[in-house]
């Protein structure tokens, strides 16, 4: 088991190393010059050349990559080319705001969708299943910005219950942001829940068809007890991976929803950094997203192993 964990962690580190190279290369390939983008189109050629030199854009790419990775390992992501502030501090401020949405989304989406998924599985091919499956299919197919826009039109414009956009900057307090997190969280939860619902439904159906569930039923246990004690733990296992992937998507993929709500989170920072060609910030965000992805997957793998006796003993039997 220990060797499995070590191998799994080594793979994660390798993945991160590869992604750092890809991130660096991808950012280099962005069309448009940083210096022009920062100075605006009003810049004189002299000013652009001076800035390029100041930003060390004239140094070869590999040298800049080594500098960057070396700094990143020490938690130093350089300074923003646009604001001149430390990227690490900026990114963590925005990341904190996004985390607020992420926590609420996960609470909504995971609890809600697991309950719905189990209901659908238990009522397979009856009306609750049809309803839940259809709604989740719609949630899966509609892009999040449409969901977000419809939510704004319903709950900010038609019924003025929630703010349509956030008018505060990134240094807003949790109290200031709190009224504005519900709609983005709901929009993300709708899109995210759809996958978890379908996964949970399938696993429940699979588990309910196994022999040990039949045995438990034959023993005379109530349906409620069969489901909670025997079916649920096994049904949740395959769902874990889907949840982990979705949490990772949440951190990396909120850009669109944050843009609709003008929410000062990591997604909005990412968009404005790309538009401003703020290379250190883009690279830091991309790398952090990669870390989140890898860690979420790793956690899901390890948790699956911890919950699944067959996987846990695999190392020993071999």
């Amino acid at each position: 088991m220990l060797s499995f964990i070590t191998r799994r962690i080594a793979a994660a580190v390798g993945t991160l190393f590869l992604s750092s190279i890809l991130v660096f290369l991808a950012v280099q390939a962005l069309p448009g010059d940083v210096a022009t983008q920062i100075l605006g189109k009003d810049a004189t050629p002299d000013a652009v050349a001076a800035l390029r030199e100041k930003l060390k854009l004239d140094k070869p790419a590999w040298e800049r990559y080594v500098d960057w990775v070396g700094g990143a390992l020490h938690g130093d992501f350089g300074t923003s080319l646009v604001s001149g502030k430390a990227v690490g501090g900026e990114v963590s401020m925005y990341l904190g705001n996004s985390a607020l949405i992420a926590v609420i989304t996960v609470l909504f989406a995971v609890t809600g969708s697991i309950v719905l998924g189990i209901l659908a599985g238990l009522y397979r091919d009856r009306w609750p299943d049809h309803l839940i499956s259809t709604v989740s299919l719609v949630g899966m197919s509609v892009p999040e910005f449409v969901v977000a826009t419809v939510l704004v039109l319903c709950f900010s414009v038609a019924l003025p219950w929630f703010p349509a956009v956030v008018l505060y900057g990134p240094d807003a307090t949790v109290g200031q942001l709190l009224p504005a997190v519900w709609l983005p969280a709901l929009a993300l939860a709708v899109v995210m829940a759809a996958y978890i619902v379908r996964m949970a439904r399938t696993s429940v159906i699979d588990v309910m068809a196994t022999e040990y569930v039949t045995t438990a039923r034959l023993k005379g246990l109530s349906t409620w007890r069969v489901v909670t004690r025997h079916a649920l733990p096994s049904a949740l296992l395959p769902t874990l991976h889907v949840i982990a992937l979705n949490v990772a998507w949440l951190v990396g993929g909120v850009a669109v929803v944050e843009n609709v709500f003008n929410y000062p989170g990591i997604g909005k920072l990412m968009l404005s950094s790309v538009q401003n060609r703020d290379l250190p910030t883009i690279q830091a965000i991309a790398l952090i997203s990669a870390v989140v992805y890898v860690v979420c997957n790793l956690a899901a793998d390890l948790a699956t192993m911890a919950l699944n006796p067959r996987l846990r003993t695999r190392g020993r039997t071999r």
Partner: protein
Amino acid sequence: MSDIHHPGRRSVLTAGLASAAALGGSWLLTGCAGAEAAPVLPAAAAKGAPDRGGTLRIARPPASDAETLDPASSLSAYEYLGALYNRLVRIGPDGDLAPDLAESWETDAKARTWTFRLRKGVAFHNGRAFTSADAAYTLRHILDKATASPQAAVLAPLIDPAKLGTPDAHTLVVPLKTPNAEFPSLLTHYNCYVIPDGSAKSIGRTGIGTGPFKLESFAPAGPGRVTAYADHWAGRPVLDAIAFYSVADMSARSNALLAGQVDLLSQTNLDFATARVVAASDRATIARVKNAQWYVLPMLTTEKPFTDVRVRQAMKLAYDPEHVVKVALQGAGTAGWDNPVPSSDPAHITAHPKHDPEQAKYLLKQAGHEGLAMDLYTSSYDPLFTPMALAYQDSAKRAGIRIKVKTASADSYYTQIWMKKPLMATYWFTGRPVDQLFTQIFRSGSSYNETAWSDKEFDAVLDRARAEIDDTKRRELYGEAQTLVIEKGGAMTPMFADRLVGISRKVRGYAEHGFEFDYLGIGLKGA
């Protein structure tokens, strides 16, 4: 040039989001009636006097995360400038010059030395009196290389910063290197707001000016607030305060307006679908800024086949601007007929060649480009680029010109496409004085000469116009310059478009033309 870019660095997502918002919106607001006729766009904002006091909330697109309050900078936060500062001269609603901090101005017989008489009893927000030293310092600050001001390119060939004269506290003397009878009009640019003597280092944060509002707070690309300056020389503004919020995404801005979170969307030309949704709302409506933007299809005169003047003429004769206005603007604007000088400008001439596809065909055949095929680049940077390109494509077909419309990424459009591809779509804000317009955008070698057009005759006419003291004769010369641009230049100007501005139904006294915004008179009713 940031004037073209002032309408904001909109997100790549804008077009998609806006249309989604529009779809969702009309579906909600018409209550699923679906086939109901779209509401007609109102022609003007609500009239009537505002109540005194109140806070106006403005949503604006941030210039960049590196924004500053220094008016001379290319990254200045545009909406704050007119609230915080004054210029020496401004442009009145009739297109002529109007006094601001300078009460009057005159020149010598050769238009070589300009003398400005400055207003007395004007104080900066920090209590210091405004004098000619501040006016001279402002000009030197713009010309300072370290400022990297876009307006420096216009003023540097004219002014020697060392020779500026301040004979007394309320007189500014500006000797010019070359004669220029239109010189004061160049000071109406929004980079020319007057700042206090010696403030170069701090002005970007403090925002100390003589304007109707003083700064309370400001965060680059973030929220900020200005409050009424009771001692303003032209009287106290109607409002108590203006709150500025920066909202980068266009559909997020219109959502904020629809939800009643803001009262005015600055620098936002709403697309027609969104405009209809806004106009149908109980809270918000549309105000039009007449002919606020001019749209251009620049042909790079240094790239084949546009090196040949006959091809450029054919491209212009081939299409019907009236058709473009009808299709792309749904009538909300006027045909440009390839003349970039707006009809509101006193120097505007109405003469132009007629739409003539047969003549276009003939010219192309002569130039050896029969059945010309070209790529025309657009992007979602502005909602009218693509409709304009498609309307041109459609109209030019009759002359046998085959246009392929290509959509490029919006966020790198002005670094990768503009002034690089031979044929593309772009636009400018109107409100530029005629001499500045021609000097910046059409004169040989100017950095914003987007068609790279270089014509000795045109440059000479411009020089003669500048040196001409007689107003009537000078206007004639600017008329000649227009004729040259229309007949030989590389810019096709299909249309002038009204800007559709989203405002709250509570807003009264909204007035905007060119780069002028009435911060004194705007207010709210029942706020």
